[in-house]
């Protein structure tokens, strides 16, 4: 069952066409990677999927509810983890979780149990009553992720969720994503770490200069290039990157 469906999304800023006619879909229980170089339009697309940006063209449907026509119902089904964990700096993680639970109308018992579980899962016990402003970037990222899954979303959108995290935290996030997908959550996440994308994703979308340039399962995508190519080589081929050779030569003094 398709939980996230985006059709013909376009967004421009003045003369810059940030996203151009992008369509994508994610089914329940599926983990889909969203790859692309810096400035390709990944974050803009994700922000349109969550409703932070209004597309110039196109529609977004979350679990059967149109994001534009029924925003409240649609948003109840989404969890979102931004690339930068901009949280309420003057709240403690515990207060932030309580706030999030109330916003999503969780009853008291359910909220308290889930909050306790998430604090344990993310090793946030010692940080629960500290101000968020005093936490490290990685811990803030954990708080952001925990808040995003607190209401058990049907669709989880993550914008480079492993950025700034240590290997242990990265592994934990991967495990949680796998666990959520097994329980039926549709997950779309952007990343620059191709190894994660290759190992975790059922399918990939590759975006470049605002357009989807490839999509499909990893193995099938690799088949489209020469035999034995890696995902990295495929990515470079599709999005460009040979221009960096000159930089490498310059830096190495050749």
């Amino acid at each position, binding site marked *: 069952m398709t939980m996230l469906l985006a059709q013909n999304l376009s967004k421009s800023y003045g003369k810059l066409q940030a996203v151009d006619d992008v369509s994508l879909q994610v089914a329940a229980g599926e983990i889909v990677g969203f790859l692309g170089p810096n400035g390709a339009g990944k974050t803009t697309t994700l922000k349109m999927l969550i409703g*932070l940006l*209004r597309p110039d063209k196109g529609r977004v449907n979350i679990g059967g509810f149109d994001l534009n026509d029924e925003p*409240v119902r649609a948003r109840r089904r989404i969890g979102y983890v931004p690339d930068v964990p901009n949280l*309420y*700096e003057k709240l403690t993680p515990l207060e932030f979780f*309580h*706030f999030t639970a109330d*916003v999503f109308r969780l009853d008291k018992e359910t909220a308290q149990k889930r909050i306790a579980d998430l604090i344990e899962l993310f090793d946030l016990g010692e940080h629960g009553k500290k101000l968020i402003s*005093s936490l490290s970037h990685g811990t803030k990222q954990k708080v952001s992720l925990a808040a995003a899954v607190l209401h058990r979303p049907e669709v989880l959108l993550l914008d480079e969720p492993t950025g700034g995290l240590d290997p242990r935290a990265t592994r934990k996030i991967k495990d949680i994503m796998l666990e959520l997908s097994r329980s039926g959550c549709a997950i779309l996440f952007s990343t620059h770490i191709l190894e994660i994308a290759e190992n975790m994703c059922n399918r990939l979308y590759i975006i470049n200069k605002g357009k989807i340039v490839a999509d499909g399962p990893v193995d099938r995508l690799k088949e489209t290039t020469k035999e034995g190519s890696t995902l990295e080589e495929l990515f470079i081929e599709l999005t460009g990157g040979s221009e960096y050779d000159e930089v490498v030569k310059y830096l190495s003094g050749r």
Partner: protein
Amino acid sequence: MLAALLKYRLLMMLGAVRGGGKIGKTLLFIFVFAMLAFALSSFAYGLLKFAELDPERGPRILENLVALSFHGMFLLLLFWGLSQAVFTIFFSDDLAILLSLPIPRRDIFIYKVLEATFLNARVSFLFLTPVLVVLGLHHGSSPGYYCIAALVTFLMATIPGALGIIIASLISNHVPRARLKGVITVVGSFIGIGMWAAMRQFSGQFSSGSADFGSEAMKTANIASWPIFSYLPSGWAYKATLGAASGDLPVALLYFLILVVLSVALTFVAFVSTARYYAGGIAEEVAAPSRVAIGGFAPGGSPLMAHVKRDMILFARESGVMTQSLVMMAFFLLYPFVGTSGHSDEISGLVISPVATLFAAFFGGQVGSRMLTLERLAFWRNLINPNGRQLTLASKLIVGLLFTTILALGAAMIHYVAKKPGDIDSVFLTILFSWIGFGVGLAICAFWGNFKWDHPKRMLKGGGGFIYAFSIMVVGLGGYGLTYLAYRYLSSLINPIMIVAVLSLGILSISYMVSALKLTNMEWTPDV
């Protein structure tokens, strides 16, 4: 190296004026600048004509006005020049990169002091230039006078900045860095208000009662002759300028040298006192700042109550808001001293003066303009929370009005008690005018706030600036005019307070509606 730093700063300033290549912003800047120049020139021309046409009173008023401008500017710099300097020296964005470069610390410090002084002095130049030019023209002064006047203005502006740095260095051991600026702002406010109160207290025989002029304006200008001003840097600046203008060079040089010595000495002390701070680096504090405990934030409430509780916590823990509140409370300590001289205001006969009205409106406006940006970089969450946008505004209104009302009530009660006996109407009017200001502040913040999540520093600011101040002035004084009319002509038909109450509720409603409209259409604003 210092020249390179100054050149880099100049380029940044030009970039800001050019508005990132946007022609509209440049034209707006030129237009506003031209309008301001026109207004100031017109004022200066009128003043010159007045001084020429009335040889008996004109020159004296002109000189008093120059003195008053210096004193007013100095007090103003004490209010916000201190914190401006502290921010530039200790917290500016470029400090981290400058300290990592092979630049002598002395050069960085001098550059930063020059930057802070320039930021302080630009306002002084803006408002002092017309009266100083008129003074020069009136006396037929040589070009040397204008050079001395410019230098004197600059030197006077260095003093509050250097004081701010010294105070900040002294208390930086005891106050967390994040709160340093706020503490300095409060200290500056209390110094300024304390000086004003002391002057009122000890200069009674020289105040308006002894003035030989007839009107209120003349009495006000005569404040400049209060003896205490002779001992302030602004008094020395005035004497140096007047000496240079009238050709009394020994006096001009004497006070100019006093200013130079004081300015250099304070700047040197500031330099020495910042050595430890710069040498220690500018790492962010790791220790958790203190929290204000707010009881009862457990899950299980309604989404609206969740928003209200969140805003109350953020409000209580937001050092900027608390600083601002303390500054406003310091202002309100002045309440009994301003505008009124007895049971009713001497200008209009009302129970509340225009100055007190503006205080109340500005206070409410400050709270209103802070409410939306209270959440800082996390504000975007309101845009994706279910029902977030509607609940956001409702909770801002509840929390903001609660806070505004409590503090306005406190200030009004001080005023009421100090007047012995006061008029209870003034208490209600103070609260209602603070609500009017709150409504204006909230709407202006919604429309002109910097909701740029990709730029953390910009997001910290409330919106408005000039538009905010101008709107509060217009609405506050407009409301005052309406109150005057209500008391004068309608009091036999209806309680005038009801009319002001209707006005304030009307403005609050309009503010709520336009803010809701803005929030409904708001989206992420990336900078591309």
